[in-house]
C-alpha cells in the first residue's frame, strides 16, 4: 500500500445471471391481471368500466345530434377570433418563428435522447389496441366499425411483426427521439392534405353538403412551417459550435414575446421614431461613458456619489412631467450605475458590462416605440388579440413579467429586513388567499376607478397586469422554497470571501435557488396556462368564451345553435394537448437536472 496501489483480493468469477423465463402473453396476463382472486374481480370490474367508458365516449362523439361542423367551420374564429384576412400572414410568421427558434435551440443544446424499437412498438400497439377496442365496442355504424377495427388490428399486427423480426435488436436504444418527433410532425402535416370533413353549404344552410379537406386554407402555411423547422434544425447543427450561439438564442427567446405579440401580431405603425432615437443615442453615449467610468473600482466614494445622484435624478423624474422613455432610461442608467462595482470587475468584463447597458437602452427604446405606435391590424376591439392567441398572450406574458417581481418578493420574504419581510409576506398571503376570479373581477370593476379621468387601459392589459401580480405571489413561494434549499455553508463561504450582500445573492444564492425550482416554475407555467381560461368570465374573448357564447349562438349562415358541448370538447382537447406536453417536459427536465435526487 505504500506505493499507493490498492490490491484487490481475488474474487470468484461472477456467475452469469440465468436467462429470465420466457414471457408470453399468458404469463403476462397471469401476472398482471389474474394474480389473486381479488385481482380477478378487479380485472372484471376494470374491463367493464373501460368498455363502458369507451362505448360512452365514442357514443358521445358519433351521436347524430352532435354538430361537429360547428367546430370545423369555426376553427379560425376559435384560434384568432376576427383577425383580418389580409394580415393572417402575421400569425403564420409568428408560429413559424417560434417553431424555427425551437428547432434551432433543440439542435444547439443537443436535446433529445434515443429510444428503442421495443418502446415504439409498445406505444403503437397501445394505439392500435385502443382503435381496435373502440371499433369493436363503440356504437359505430357498421362500415366505420369495420374500418376502425381493421386499422387497429393492422397497426397492432405490424408493430408485433416488426418487433419479432428485429429480435434482440429491438431492445437497443438506437432510434433518436427527435427523428420520431419529426416523423410525427410530417405525418400530422400530411394528414392536413388527406383528412376530409363534411362542409356545410352556405347557399342552402344545410349542415353536411360536400366533403372537403379539413385544412383547405392552412395546409400550405403548415407545410412551409414544417420545412422552416427542418431548415432551422439543419442550421442549428451547423452553428452549434459557435461560442455566442447560446446567449444569442436565450436573448432571442426573451425578445420573442414583445416582438411577436407587440410588433408582429399588432402590426405596429411606428410614430416619432426620430425623437426616440435621439433620446436613445444620447443615453447610449452619455450613459455609456458614465458606466464605463463607474466600472473602474478605483473610483471609490466618488462613484457611489455619482450613482446616488443618478438615482435621485431618476426618482425625481417621476415627480415632474417628463417623457416616460426618459424616466425609464434614467432608471436603467441609475440601476446600472449602482450595480457597476458589483458586476464590473476587470478587463473584458468592463466592456461586456457597457455592452449590456447599451443593449438595455436599445431594448427600452424599441419597447417604447412599440408602446406608442398604433396598430395597422383593424378589428372591432383596439387590440387585435382574441381566441387562442389571447391565451398565449396572457400565459407567457404573466409568467415572464411576474418572474422579476416574484424573485424580488421571495428575496424580500427571506431577508433579514423586518419591514420588507412583513410587506412581502402580507402581499403573498393576501394574493394567495383570495381566488383568482375575484382579482380578475377587481381588475374590471375596481382598478379603472383608481386612476384620474383620461387614463384608460385595454381590458387585455388590465387582465394581464392582475395575472402578473397574482402569478408573482405563487412564483415567490416557489422561489422561496429554492432559496431555503440553498445550504447555509454557501452563504458562509461567500461571506468569508468578503462578498457584498448583492454579490452573494446574484452570484451564489439565486443561481442555485433558481436551478432547484425549475420544475416548479414549469408547473407554474402550466397552472397559469390553464388559469387563463378564467378571462372568459370577465368577458375577454378567449377560446373558451368564443366556444361557450359565440359559436353556439350562430344561426346564420349555418345553424349551430346548441353546439356548446362539441365546442367545449374541442377546447378541452386543445388545452389538454399543450398541458400534457408541458407536464411531460417538466418531468424530463426534473430528471435531467436530477433535482430530487441530490
Amino acid at each position: 500500500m505504500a506505493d499507493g496501489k490498492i490490491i484487490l483480493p481475488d474474487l470468484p468469477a461472477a456467475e452469469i445471471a440465468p436467462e429470465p423465463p420466457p414471457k408470453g402473453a399468458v404469463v403476462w396476463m397471469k401476472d398482471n391481471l389474474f394474480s389473486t382472486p381479488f385481482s380477478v374481480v378487479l380485472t372484471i370490474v376494470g374491463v367493464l368500466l373501460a368498455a363502458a367508458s369507451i362505448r360512452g365516449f365514442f357514443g358521445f362523439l358519433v351521436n347524430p345530434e352532435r354538430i361537429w361542423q360547428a367546430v370545423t367551420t369555426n376553427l379560425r374564429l376559435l384560434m384568432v377570433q376576427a383577425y383580418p384576412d389580409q394580415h393572417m400572414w402575421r400569425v403564420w410568421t409568428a408560429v413559424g418563428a417560434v417553431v424555427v427558434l425551437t428547432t434551432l435551440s433543440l439542435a444547439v443544446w443537443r436535446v433529445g435522447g434515443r429510444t428503442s424499437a421495443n418502446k415504439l412498438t409498445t406505444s403503437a400497439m397501445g394505439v392500435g389496441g385502443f382503435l381496435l377496442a373502440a371499433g369493436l365496442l363503440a356504437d359505430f355504424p357498421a362500415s366505420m366499425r369495420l374500418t376502425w377495427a381493421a386499422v387497429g388490428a393492422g397497426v397492432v399486427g405490424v408493430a408485433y411483426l416488426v418487433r419479432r423480426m428485429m429480435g434482440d435488436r429491438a431492445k437497443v436504444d438506437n432510434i433518436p427521439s427527435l427523428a420520431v418527433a419529426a416523423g410525427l410532425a410530417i405525418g400530422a402535416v400530411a394528414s392536413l392534405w388527406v383528412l376530409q370533413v363534411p362542409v356545410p353549404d352556405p347557399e342552402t344552410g344545410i349542415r353536411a353538403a360536400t366533403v372537403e379537406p379539413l385544412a383547405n386554407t392552412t395546409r400550405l402555411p403548415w407545410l412551409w412551417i414544417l420545412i422552416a423547422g427542418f431548415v432551422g434544425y439543419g442550421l442549428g447543427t451547423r452553428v452549434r459550435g459557435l461560442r455566442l450561439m447560446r446567449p444569442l438564442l436565450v436573448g432571442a427567446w426573451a425578445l420573442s414575446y414583445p416582438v411577436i405579440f407587440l410588433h408582429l401580431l399588432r402590426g405596429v405603425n411606428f410614430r416619432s421614431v426620430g425623437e426616440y432615437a435621439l433620446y436613445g443615442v444620447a443615453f447610449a453615449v452619455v450613459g455609456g461613458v458614465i458606466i464605463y467610468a463607474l466600472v473602474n473600482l478605483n473610483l471609490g466614494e466618488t462613484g457611489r456619489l455619482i450613482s446616488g445622484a443618478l438615482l435621485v435624478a431618476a426618482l425625481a423624474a417621476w415627480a415632474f412631467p417628463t417623457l416616460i422613455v426618459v424616466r425609464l432610461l434614467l432608471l436603467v442608467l441609475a440601476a446600472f450605475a449602482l450595480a457597476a462595482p458589483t458586476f464590473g470587475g476587470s478587463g473584458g468584463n468592463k466592456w461586456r458590462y457597457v455592452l449590456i447597458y447599451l443593449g438595455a437602452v436599445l431594448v427600452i427604446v424599441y419597447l417604447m416605440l412599440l408602446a406608442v405606435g398604433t396598430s395597422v391590424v383593424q378589428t372591432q376591439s383596439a387590440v387585435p388579440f382574441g381566441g387562442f392567441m389571447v391565451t398565449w398572450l396572457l400565459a407567457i406574458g404573466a409568467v415572464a413579467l411576474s418572474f422579476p417581481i416574484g424573485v424580488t418578493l421571495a428575496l424580500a420574504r427571506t431577508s433579514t429586513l423586518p419591514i420588507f419581510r412583513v410587506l412581502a409576506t402580507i402581499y403573498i398571503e393576501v394574493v394567495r388567499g383570495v381566488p383568482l376570479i375575484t382579482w380578475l373581477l377587481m381588475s374590471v370593476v375596481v382598478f379603472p376607478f383608481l386612476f384620474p379621468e383620461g387614463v384608460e387601459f385595454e381590458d387585455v392589459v388590465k387582465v394581464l397586469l392582475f395575472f402578473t401580480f397574482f402569478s408573482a405571489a405563487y412564483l415567490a413561494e416557489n422561489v422561496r422554497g429554492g432559496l431555503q434549499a440553498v445550504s447555509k455553508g454557501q452563504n458562509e463561504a461567500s461571506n468569508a470571501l468578503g462578498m457584498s450582500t448583492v454579490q452573494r445573492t446574484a452570484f451564489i444564492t439565486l443561481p442555485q435557488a433558481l436551478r432547484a425550482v425549475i420544475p416548479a416554475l414549469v408547473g407554474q407555467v402550466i397552472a397559469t396556462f390553464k388559469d387563463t381560461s378564467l378571462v372568459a368570465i370577465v368577458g375577454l374573448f378567449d377560446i373558451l368564451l368564443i366556444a361557450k357564447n359565440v359559436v353556439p349562438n350562430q344561426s346564420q349562415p349555418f345553424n349551430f345553435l346548441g353546439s356548446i358541448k362539441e365546442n367545449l370538447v374541442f377546447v378541452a382537447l386543445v388545452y389538454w394537448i399543450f398541458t400534457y406536453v408541458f407536464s411531460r417536459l417538466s418531468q424530463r427536465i426534473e430528471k435531467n437536472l436530477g433535482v430530487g435526487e441530490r
Partner: protein
Amino acid sequence: MAIEQHQRPPNWRNATVLKWAAQIAVLVGLVFLFVTLGAQSLDNFADRGLTYSYKFLSDPTGVSFREGIPLEPDTGARALYLGLVNTLRITISGIVVATILGTIIGVARLSHNWIINKIATVYIEIIRNIPLLVQIIFWGAIIQQLKALTDEHIGTYAFWFTSAKGITVPWLFPDQGFYQWLVFVIIGFIAARFVYRWRMHIKEDEGRETYAISWAVGTILVAGLIGWFAHPLFAFLGGILNAIGDGIAAIPAIVIRLMLLVLVVAGVGWWIMRFFRGLRAGDAPQMNNRAVFGLFAAALLIALAVVGGFLALAGGLEGGPFWLSLGAVIAVLVVGLKYLIDWVAPRTLVSGLVDDDYFRVIFAVGAGVTLIGILVGIEAIGETIINAASAFFHFLAPKFDSTNVAAPFRYAPPTVDVRGAGFVQLSQESLVITPGFFALWVGVTLYTASFIAEIVRGGVLAVSRGQTEAGNALGLSRFQLYRFIVLPQAFRIVLPPIGNQYLNLFKNTSLGIAVAFSDIVMVGQTIYNQTGQTVPVVSLWMAFYLTGSLILSSIVNFANRRLKLVER
C-alpha cells in the same frame, strides 16, 4: 476581556441606518401610493354621485337567488350570508368526496393490476390537464340538455329524479327542534372524549382491547338518541341567549374602543418586553420584564398623547408648516425613545444594543401609534362590533323557543309539483341539487380528486420499502398491508399537500359564477351591479376568503402537529 469598541461609522455610511432608511422610504412610498389611489377612487366615485358605504347590507336586494337558504329578511347581508352558506356547502361536501375518490384512485394508480392501473392513469392525465372552468361549463351543458319537466312527471319519487331543472333526492332537513337536539350532540361529544380517555386508560392498565373508538362513537349516538326525545329540555337556553344579547347591546361603544386601545398598547409593550428578554445575555438584571413592559406601554401612551395633542392644536397649520412641525414632534419623540432605551438597556441586559435594535423598538412604537390612530379614528368601529355580537345572540335565541317542540329532523322525499304560474317544478320542499350546484360540485370534486390521487401516490411511494417488505414478511394480506402499515404512514406525509388542495378547492368554488351558482362571489357581483358599491363588496370577499383560508389552514396545521412523529 472587554470587546474593543468599534468606532461607530457616520450615519450616511452606516449600513443599519441605510437599510432602515430604505425600508421606511419604501413603506412611506407605499402608504402614499395607496392614499393617492384611494383618494382618486373616492373622487371618481363622487363624480357618479356615490360614496363608499356598507348600507347595502341592510337594504333590500330586490333579487331572488335560485340556490340555498331562503332570503328572509331580504337584505344584502342575508344575501351574502346565503352565498357564504352555498360556498361552504360545496366546499365541505366536495372535500369529503374528493378525499375518498382521490385516495381510491391514488391507490389504484399503484395497483399491480394492469387494467385498474391504466384506468386510474387515464383519469388523472385527462382531468388534471384540462382547465377546471372548461370542465365545469361542460358539466353545466350536460345537465341542461337532460329532459325538460312536463305534466307527466308530477308526483313523488322513491329515490331520485333528474331533469334539466336539476336533480332532486330524498333528504333529512333540520326541523324546529334541531338546535336543542344539537346541544345534546355537543354534550355527547364532550362526554365521548372522557369515555375515550377512560377506555384508553383501562387498555393501558390491563393490556386488553377496550374498543375505545367504538365506545366514544356509541356515546355520541346515545346522546343523540336521548336528545331526539328530550330536546325540549333545553328550551330555557333561549332566554339566556336573549339576555346575553341584551347585555352586549347595553355596553357603551366607548368601552369597545378603549378595549381596542388597551389591546394595542399591551401588544406593543409585550412585543418589546419579549424582544428585550430575547436579547438578554446574562442573569441578575436589575429590572424585571414587567417593568420593561410598563415603561414602554407608558412611553407609547405618552407618544400617543403628544401626537394627538399636536394634531388637535395644529388646526391652523397647513401644508409645509404642518408637515415640518409634525416632523419635529416625531423627531422629539424618537430621541426621547432612544434615551429611554439607553436608560432601560443597561438595567436589563449585559451585552450592549446594536443600531438595529433601536430601530426595531422605535418602529414598533411608531406602528402602535399609527394603529391606535386608525382604530380611534374610525368612529363606527365600537358600535359595529357591539351590534354584530348582540345580533348573533339575538339570532340564536329564537331557535330555542320553548314552543318549538317538533322533531329535530323532517324527512322530504323527491317531489315534482306545479307551482307559481302553472310551471312544473322540482318541489322546494325536498332537496334540489340545482344545475349550477351539480356542475360546480362535479367539476371541482373530480378535479381536486385527480390532484389528491397524485399526492396519495407520492405519499405511498415515499413510505420506506422496508415497511412493505416487513409487512409482507409478517404474511399480511395486501389489504392489511395498506390498512395497517402503509396508509397510516403515508397519511402523515400527504397531509400538508392535501391541505393545500383543500384550500384550492375552497377558492375554486368561486368559479360557480360561470354556471350561475349563487356563491358569495356571484351574490356580491349581483349586489354591486345594483348598487355600484364595488369596493365595499370586494373588501367583504377578501375578508371572507382570507378568513376561510386561515381557518382551513389552521385546521390542517393543527392536525399536522398532532400527527407529526415525535423525533428524537
